[in-house]
């Protein structure tokens, strides 16, 4: 299926009071794909999507959404773009269903608000004011508002914040449906598992630039070195001494203690390496509780890329 880039960001720079928040960022998002913009808080994710939504003007660089400039061509673009803001953007005194119907009136051919409300389980609180909704209920309403105009590009800023697992499932299902219907879905998140669950493409953002991009498998594979070096993670039921295992495996391997009961074996891991490791542990009378080869999580990739220190 051919892909046309729905969002193209080149060299985006945005400063607030002289402080650079987005620093030469490049991003593309295809139609019919879910693109996750993944990064720690303060990485510049929200500012980037706000530039795509026409809410902020770039200090440098270009932004095109569906081929249009979000600021200069705002009037032409707005009907085709759906937005879910991080802070919701819902007036507190309005009832849920009333808000959805109000935004629907801005479009010529909105989705059926009753059906949409049912899909997202809004019925239970249709007549409740936004002020009294839980975080997850607000997020579901905000998502309904974002998609009611049948957008071709959807920007969701931290869509699952405050959502319970059931809400999240319903939301991801709708997101996949939008994607399968040909829309470009761009969502920001700092949750790795969220990107793994739902994203076709991931752009990892830190300090205002994209530091890695690709599909989830591509990003995960990037951790395995080209020369065949891999890491075998061994969790054990009791404490073990890494130097004993290192001596057994020989000089081509390094063994590091990740924690008291977890070792990381790095080197040209082969079938024999796994057998030697478990054999040595059996001699020590230590039970293996987990054996993991090369299956890094996106979280490992993310932390390797952005650093493990608190910020």
């Amino acid at each position: 299926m051919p892909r046309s880039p729905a969002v193209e960001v080149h060299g985006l720079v945005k400063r607030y009071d002289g402080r650079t928040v987005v620093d030469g960022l490049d991003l593309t998002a295809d139609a019919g794909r879910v693109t996750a913009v993944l990064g720690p808080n303060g990485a510049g994710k929200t500012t980037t999507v706000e530039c795509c939504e026409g809410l902020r003007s770039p200090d440098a660089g270009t932004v095109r959404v569906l081929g249009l400039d979000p600021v200069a061509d705002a009037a032409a673009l707005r009907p085709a773009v759906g937005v879910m803001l991080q802070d919701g953007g819902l007036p507190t005194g309005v009832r849920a269903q009333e808000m959805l119907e109000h935004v629907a009136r801005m479009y010529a051919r909105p989705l059926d608000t009753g059906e949409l409300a049912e899909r997202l389980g809004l019925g239970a609180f249709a007549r409740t004011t936004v002020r009294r909704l839980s975080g997850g209920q607000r997020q579901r309403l905000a998502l309904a508002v974002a998609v009611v105009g049948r957008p071709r590009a959807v920007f969701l800023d931290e869509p699952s914040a405050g959502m319970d697992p059931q809400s999240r499932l319903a939301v991801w299902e709708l997101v996949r449906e939008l994607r399968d219907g040909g829309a470009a879905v761009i969502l920001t998140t700092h949750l790795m598992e969220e990107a793994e669950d739902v994203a076709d493409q991931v752009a990892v953002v830190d300090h205002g630039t994209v530091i890695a991009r690709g599909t989830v498998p591509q990003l995960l594979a990037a951790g395995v070195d080209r020369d065949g070096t891999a890491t075998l993670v061994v969790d054990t039921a009791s404490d073990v001494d890494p130097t004993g295992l290192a001596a057994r495996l020989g000089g081509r391997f390094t063994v590091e203690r990740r924690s008291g009961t977890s070792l990381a074996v790095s080197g040209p891991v082969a079938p024999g390496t796994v057998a030697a490791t478990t054999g040595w542990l059996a001699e020590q009378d230590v039970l293996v509780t987990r054996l993991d080869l090369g299956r890094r999580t996106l979280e490992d990739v993310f932390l390797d890329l952005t650093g493990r220190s608190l910020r």
Partner: protein
Amino acid sequence: MSVPDAPATPLADGPAAAPPARRVLAQAAFEARMILRNGEQVLVAVVIPVLALVGLVQTSFVALDTDGMSRVDFLTPGVLALAVMTASFTSQAIATAFDRRNGVLRLMATTPLGRGGLLAGKVLGVLAVEAVQVVLIGAAALVLGWRPDPAGVLLALVGVVLGTAAFTALALLVAGTLRAEAVLALANLLLLVLALGGGVIVPADRLPGPLATLAAWLPSGALGDVLRGALVDGALPLVPVLVLAGWTAVLGTLAARLFRWH
């Protein structure tokens, strides 16, 4: 510029905006409904002006030099001016400030309504609330024996629109530059100060000392004088009209320059 071809999808008939007039009217109705549903807002916008009118007309605790007019003829234009101020300034400033803090302004700006449509909807929403105020306060005044100059009724509507322009500009200026809590405090305080000493109910030239001169140049005093001119004398007084227009120009320019959406 054209939108690139999208893959054939259920969305292929393409997203489109509702016509501009429908969007703005929908927003105006939404804004007016939000205000009239809020108990505190109805209290400030309708109940207090009507009670003030009835209280001041039916009792003589407050001595008034009415220039030979009946108390109700003398007071009603000022009470209407006060009502315009509550709708176009106090309640609009507070609503916009909290909408700005909660991201409502930004969200609606990303829909086909846009920033211009949002502003137009707000102004029309204020005028709709004022229509309700004028009908209820006017009805109460007529029951109390109010006999306005018939020629002045249309002129008074011009005055209402002029006052609304100036005070909505002031509302947007404070709502777009200050924190929501600060706006809440300021908008109520300013309404009280202007109502008592701003030449609204008591005409500027009856106020003590330097306040008499100052109040005439305030938008509150000018609005009071315009409505009194229209409803009592059947004519629009030139100077207060120019004062209101001047405030509208200054406050509108400042609001357009300084308003922050974030």
